[in-house]
């Protein structure tokens, strides 16, 4: 099965073929014989040319993976053939819709913009408080505010849409 890793605006192909004790993987044209033992859901022991890796993989949202390794967590954006089809229908890679979402659950303590207002990249939009810390969410590009979805005092879940834009607003 073939997947694509999205990195630095490139689509890197990775192809997996099952074999008795793991996979043959071809990553960006390089072939790896990968011994793979599944310990628990998402927890694997990989052996690649003798080197041992314990990796825990977790996915918060489709196509986005945190790969925990001893020396660090890697974030991998990876698309399946199906994802790729869907993505080509809904727009190019990198755009996630013109909105700013709550990066964590919390409470809206301040709304800094109003509907119809033009904002500049880096301008503060909403302040959300969680764990005794206030966090100002900023525009990641110049845009025009279309809707403000929250009011001061609202509790919001992680991922909740806070502000949407009418202009060109690149995803984070």
């Amino acid at each position, binding site marked *: *099965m073939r*997947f694509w*890793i999205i*990195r630095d605006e490139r689509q*890197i192909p*990775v192809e*997996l073929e099952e074999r008795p004790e793991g*996979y043959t*993987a071809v*990553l960006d044209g*390089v072939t*790896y014989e*990968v011994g*793979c033992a*599944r310990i*628990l859901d*998402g*927890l*694997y022991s*990989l052996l*690649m040319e003798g*080197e041992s*890796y314990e*990796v*825990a*993989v*977790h*996915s918060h949202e489709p196509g986005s*993976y*945190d*790969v*925990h*390794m*001893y*020396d*660090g*967590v*890697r*974030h*991998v954006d*990876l698309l*399946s053939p199906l994802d790729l089809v869907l993505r080509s229908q809904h727009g190019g890679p990198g755009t996630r819709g013109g909105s700013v979402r709550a*990066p*964590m*659950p*919390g409470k809206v303590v301040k709304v800094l913009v109003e509907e119809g207002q033009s904002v500049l990249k880096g301008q503060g939009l909403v302040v959300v408080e*969680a*764990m*005794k*810390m206030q*966090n100002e969410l900023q525009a990641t590009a110049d845009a025009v505010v279309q809707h403000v979805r929250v009011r001061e005092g609202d509790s919001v879940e*992680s991922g909740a849409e806070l502000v949407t834009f009418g202009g060109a607003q690149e995803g984070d």
Partner: protein
Amino acid sequence: MINKVLIANRGEIAVRILRALRDMGIASVAVYSEADRAARHVRLADEAYCIGPPPSAQSYLNMDAILSTAKACGAQAVHPGYGFLSENAHFAERCEKEGILFVGPPADAIRAMGEKTRARQLMAEAGVPVVPGTLAPLDSPEAAEAAAETTGYPVMLKAAAGGGGKGMRLVERRAQIASAFRDASSEALKAFGDGSVYLERAVVRPRHIEMQILADGHGNCIYLGERECSIQRRHQKVVEEAPSPLVTPAMRASMGEVAVRAARAVGYRSAGTIEFLVDQSGEFFFMEMNTRLQVEHAVTEMVTGIDLVREQIHIAEGEPLSLRQEDVEIRGWAMECRIYAEDPQRNFLPCPGTIHAVRLPEGPNVRVDSAAFTRGEISMFYDPMVAKVITWGSDRDACAATMNRALMEFQIVGTHTNRDFLLAIVNHPDFKAGALDTGFIPRHFSGVSMPVSSPAAAADIAAAIYAYESSRKQPCTAPPQAAPSAWRRAMMGDR
């Protein structure tokens, strides 16, 4: 003899206190907010009672609920941990009034040290060094020059009315002071409508070093050595160690004696910490006293072999200290890394949420004090610190190497943590060299975006394997939908 203690706290410190109580054969009582029903401190305790809704003000800060629970379950003492009510003099008084022992200092000592300016005054009177300076405004460049002669250079000129860096000038040499005074004064006048300026010795690249003390109710007070806590981010300690790479035995004795003097000056009892601002030459100045157990107390325990919570309980029982100053001996080195649920890639945004899985480090010379568990909730209502990793080594290099190993084994999956940031700190050449000061993190890490682990073929392939296996799973194994309730069915027209 105390045989039951209520712990008025949560998280790793509640768990740590519970373990000390179990070691002592004392029954433990946990209290919890509605958000913490499944928390580890509830499950490890002998008894557990709910004290209110999630917000701290209604639960962990709710004195009435805590005291009535203590009385109802027959606890003779309350241990407040750190944070919450631990430095609340009023709570200490209320405990006393209700006939419940407060495992901590007398209310007066908390109060004396709680008002920072009064504490500084008290300390100066007791002969504890404070940052030298004038405090009162200077009326001329000549007066500033004279004052600087007394304090020594470099000095800092500060607007008496001010803050936020306005009207401040760092002066390195005598030749600069007159013009700096005029500049500072005019800037202060513009900014605050008041041109008054005072002067303080400037501590350049200061280190934060603190001294642990123990005092009983019989007039005994000893020091247990220092901790270096210079690795801070926004005044939040991140990595601590004991001893300090800067401190010599002579400096330790001198800091220790000063700390004991400071504690005696306020009639201190229990475990406490005197925080010092230390310049790179080793000269130290009183900053403040923390009248409670510190987050980082474990590093002192690792090098001295003394259980600080056990000592607190004994002191609260009225026993004299079981140790004399000469019994305190530092062996080897200890470090602590604080694991926060936060995202170093997104300006250290706190990351509440559900922990998918936890793996804790094990093996020689590793201690973990943790409240994290698989499927545990990191609540948005409380502090994002979820665990402490503490390591020991026969020397500083061995200790740092073991910290590196322990952090590599540490894993929280499902939410972001600062683990990789901690790994970057303990492997930084300046950290390894012991070249520490409170500017370490802002200087070496931008403070906004942290280095990202470089791509690895194994990671890319692992993600692909996971995606492949997930795509093959039968839809049947997805969590079953809860049956719609009668109410919901009614709303849906019972389709």
